[in-house]
């Protein structure tokens, strides 16, 4: 039985000024993976490699248990895609898109598509050029969902959406994985959306995977210790992941706040957010 919808193994790629270095991760069935990192960290390049849009890479990518390069068509049939840059021509309206998509996807479901349009309050006969950024995003999401994909790959799907719309979209993502066979790869630098619903967090920085853990391991176990210099000096190097010194305090990123507290009895240990984690990992001292 295949347990992983997606497997990326040792993905490497060199550009003039940028490199992907041995990027590896897995996405099991029925789960949501949050792919986080700064702009330019390698998220989009990784996604485009999975989709076989860029293919001058080394390493191996399997989607639904199949090699993505050898089974390009079969793989793409079952992936719903939302990319950061809108790809629909401006003069089309959502009804035109239905006509086009019917020819592209074998499993295109017009009824489902119009149902999503209605849910998102999108007009069916208005040209896309009159759409706001949020409306365009919703149209892309509706399109991605309407051919019954098994894997959704979403590059920054919530950027440009207001909080209420983001909320609606997240509900739809959680609906999507009610079917245990379906998974979502969601890349974003807006980490709050992922904080609650992502099962796995993969953090990429400068083309390398820095962290790859379950949401619960990261957000319930990791912590940020705030302490004085005297206290800081007592901490073993092996017990800290990163630290930052500010004028009034030391901030220390630790792997397990409970264990740390037991060992050192420093009382100020904050729960972390993905945003804190990203900042500490990138700006903090090793």
């Amino acid at each position, binding site marked *: 039985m295949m347990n992983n919808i997606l497997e990326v193994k040792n993905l490497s790629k060199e550009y003039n000024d940028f490199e992907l270095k041995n990027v590896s991760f897995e996405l099991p069935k*029925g*789960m*949501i993976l949050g792919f986080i990192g700064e702009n330019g960290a390698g998220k989009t390049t990784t996604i485009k490699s999975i989709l076989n849009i860029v293919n001058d890479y080394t390493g191996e990518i399997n989607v639904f248990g199949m090699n993505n390069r050898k089974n390009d068509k079969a793989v793409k049939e079952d992936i719903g895609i939302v990319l950061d840059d809108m790809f629909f021509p401006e003069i089309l309206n959502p009804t035109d898109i239905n006509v086009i998509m019917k020819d592209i996807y074998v499993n295109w479901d017009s009824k489902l598509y119009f149902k999503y349009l209605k849910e998102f309050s999108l007009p069916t006969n208005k040209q896309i050029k009159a759409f706001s950024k949020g409306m365009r995003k919703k149209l892309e999401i509706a399109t991605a969902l309407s051919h019954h994909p098994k894997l959704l790959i979403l590059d920054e799907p919530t950027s440009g959406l207001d909080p209420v719309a983001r909320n609606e979209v*997240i*509900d739809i993502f*959680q*609906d999507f*994985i*009610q079917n*245990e066979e379906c998974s979502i790869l969601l890349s974003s630098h807006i980490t709050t959306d992922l904080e*609650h*619903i*992502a*099962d*796995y967090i993969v953090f990429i920085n400068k083309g390398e995977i820095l962290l790859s853990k*379950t*949401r*619960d391991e990261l957000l*319930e176990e990791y912590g940020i210790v705030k302490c004085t210099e005297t206290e800081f000096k007592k901490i073993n190097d092996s017990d800290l992941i990163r630290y930052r010194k500010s004028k009034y305090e030391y901030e220390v990123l630790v792997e397990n706040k409970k264990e740390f507290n*037991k060992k050192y*009895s420093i009382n100020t240990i904050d*729960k972390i957010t993905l945003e804190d984690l990203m900042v500490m990992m990138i700006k903090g001292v090793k």
Partner: protein
Amino acid sequence: MEIIISNSSGIPIYEQIKEQIKAKIISNELKVNELLPSIRSLAKDLRCSVITTKNAYEELVHEGYVINVPSKGFYVAEINDEVVREELLNKIELLLDEAVRIAKLNSVDKKTILEMINILYEEE
């Protein structure tokens, strides 16, 4: 069934879910053999990750409050007084552990602690 999740309490979300379901089982609000919501639907309704609800259910199974029937779902187990007592003792031990830790850190001796417990016990 009501489950209230706080994102700022500092208690892990899976633990909040676990403890609240457990309390409902002990109070008999959730009846023996009752089917619990699926991992996925609970995750959706609580807006949390699937792994979080899965962790909560797995711990409930481990502690004997819930039974996992493969490809059917999670059911409330028949709990006996022993399980409940075990749970209570665990809770007390955890709190005492914390008390002893603080005592040791601040060189408060065992005798003083035992005295305190004695006094607390006599109070009604």
